């Protein structure tokens, strides 16, 4: 009997080797736009057609900062390739606050292809997400599902696997102890030392391949706030410096004044 070869008997992508774990792209991925995050994600990016579960410590974590770059890149790609009227649509289901679309436009996302749903009761979100995943034009679904059960998540994971969509599900941080069918689980918190530079702390709770225990710090990319804070700091530093100069070094005028007084 000839030796059994895995590559012959299984289609590619169905089997991943332990030696490749954490590096090989098992499925298609979309770069997250954050180089440090790409380095720890299997396949160097968000898995396309897989449920991405984001557990947030704060009610409004930095959702937009985390997913924004990938969302923009994905939509641009769909707009380049797709000819359909609504190609590149992005669906937001039950976010904590309504999106302020001018900001999203400014960052490079075409917000006229953005659909914001706020369901009458939170249990209805999963149905809408499931249906949205079946749409041909949708490139990404972002769903805030604080009450989702494991069954609901499994259904969503199944639907996402059949579609070519990016699917993020945002849940509160207390859910980290619950089992989840998501192939990628992240815990995101606003960085504790964030008063200097706004940023995110991301911990990978679960991924395909070897576990990863370190924390990644991500800067904000889709906002002018870090630059503004930086400018503010420079201005205040210059002012402080100017004040110190004034205090410690006698100016030429001082000498004139003293000479006048002596005279």
């Amino acid at each position: 009997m000839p030796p059994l070869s895995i590559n012959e008997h299984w289609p590619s992508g169905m089997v991943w080797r332990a030696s490749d774990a954490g590096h090989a792209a098992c499925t298609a991925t979309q770069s997250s736009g954050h180089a440090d995050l790409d380095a720890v994600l299997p396949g160097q990016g968000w898995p396309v057609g897989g449920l991405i579960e984001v557990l947030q410590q704060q009610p409004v974590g930095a959702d937009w900062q985390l997913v924004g770059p990938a969302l923009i890149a994905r939509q641009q790609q769909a707009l380049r390739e797709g000819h359909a009227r609504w190609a590149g649509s992005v669906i937001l289901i039950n976010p904590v606050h309504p999106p302020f679309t001018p900001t999203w436009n400014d960052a490079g996302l075409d917000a006229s292809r953005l659909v914001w749903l706020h369901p009458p009761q939170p249990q209805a979100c999963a149905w809408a997400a499931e249906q949205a995943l079946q749409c041909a034009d949708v490139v990404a679904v972002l769903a805030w599902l604080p009450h989702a059960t494991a069954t609901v998540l499994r259904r969503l994971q199944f639907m996402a696997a059949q579609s070519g969509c990016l699917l993020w599900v945002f849940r509160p941080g207390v859910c980290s102890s619950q089992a989840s069918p998501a192939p990628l689980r992240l815990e995101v918190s606003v960085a504790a030392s964030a008063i200097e530079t706004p940023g995110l702390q991301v911990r990978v709770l679960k991924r395909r391949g070897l576990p990863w225990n370190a924390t990644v710090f991500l800067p904000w990319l889709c906002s002018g706030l870090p630059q503004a804070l930086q400018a503010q700091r420079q201005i205040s530093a210059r002012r402080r410096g100017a004040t110190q100069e004034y205090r410690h070094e006698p100016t030429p005028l001082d000498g004139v004044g003293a000479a006048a007084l002596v005279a």
Partner: protein
Amino acid sequence: MNPRRWMVLALPHWLHESSPGGGSAEAPAQDVVAMWCAAFSPDVFVLSSGVAIDGQSVARYWGGWAPLWGRVMQAWVQQWSVPLLRGHGATVWQALARLQQGLPHTSPVDALALEGLPGVAAHLPMWQSLGLETWGQLRALPRGAVARRWGKGVLSTLDQAYGEARHCLAPIVVPAQFNAQMACAQPVNTVAGLAGLMQALLHEAVAWLYARGQRALALVWTLHLDVPHTQAVQGRLSQQVFAVASAQASSDRGLWWRLVHEHMTRWELSAPVHAVSLRWAQTQLPSEEARGLWDGPKGQSLEAWLDRVKARWGGEHVGLASWRADHVPERMQAWSTDLPKGKQEGASQARGLYPPWLLREPLRLWVKADKPWYQGPLRLVLGPQRLDAMPWSATWSDAAPQAVRRDYFVAHSAHAGWLWIYRERAHAEHTHAQWFLQGVYG
């Protein structure tokens, strides 16, 4: 004579009562199938247990016999998810006999069993005792004797079956306007009880669309209520009308049924229903911009999905952004429930430190020691950014209702993160400044 000129179609349960699929709501009725077949040929006939299509006048149009019948079967598989039996023949009775006996169109006509002839069931026992089993054996008997013994009807049927006489069937007519009504077996009190009836009506309506080569934008259900005559005279409505509209013209049965199903759950009956009628409110020919060339069969369209969401939740739960040139953040964008028809112009871009999330209503903040609090004390990091907005019509005074005079700040707190808050300048000279939270960075 071409042995593939006729095709007779039947669902299994039309031929044999015991076959599965008889009670299925998916299975279309016989006249529905006949109407659907009218899309391929004007000569469609309803038989006692099947639907017959004469392809003589249209075979050239479709490119031959094989493309014609292949197209019918392909369309059937796409439209109806139920199995179908078919038989071919040079005449309608040959096709019917081959359908019933499950024979291919190459089987010899003389060998067909006599059970397949219509209207001869009464004579079958005697023919059996005489040893007559096939069409050929009956035809070989002297015509005069057959006519005397079993009547002229047997001879004329046999002539029709061999194509020596014209059949006397009337083709179906597809009406110019669709308006169908079905009566309930007994008055129905719940909407759920109407589902079977409505699905049958919708089958018929979709078959009509298919036969006319049209798509529809809206349909109207009329529920005829079982209201006593005395009350009807007093002005109580004797019918309820419900319209169901779709954003894109469609003739897809599944799409319409899903949409109707979503709407049904919101209906409330004011009296028992004794009949239901259905008509298309708006139909159109398929336009050039029909989708499907590039999209492929990957999934439903965004319009269809939004229609379903709106039917289930109500329009107010769906938001699509549109923009206005304004300086006040909450007036920069407006939410509508419908997809914009054309390309949106002047998508507003907010340059500056605007947050990605905006609260529906600014939230009044608690002020402690002249400092705003939100989940703890807030530290003002950037600001103020001054906003003075005043409608052209108003005079410059704080009392104008739409005047907005605010100082915006970026604030930070260890627990709540980065916030966008403002102070109402109208009240700045008051003892306590009013602070509001309007946006969240994140």
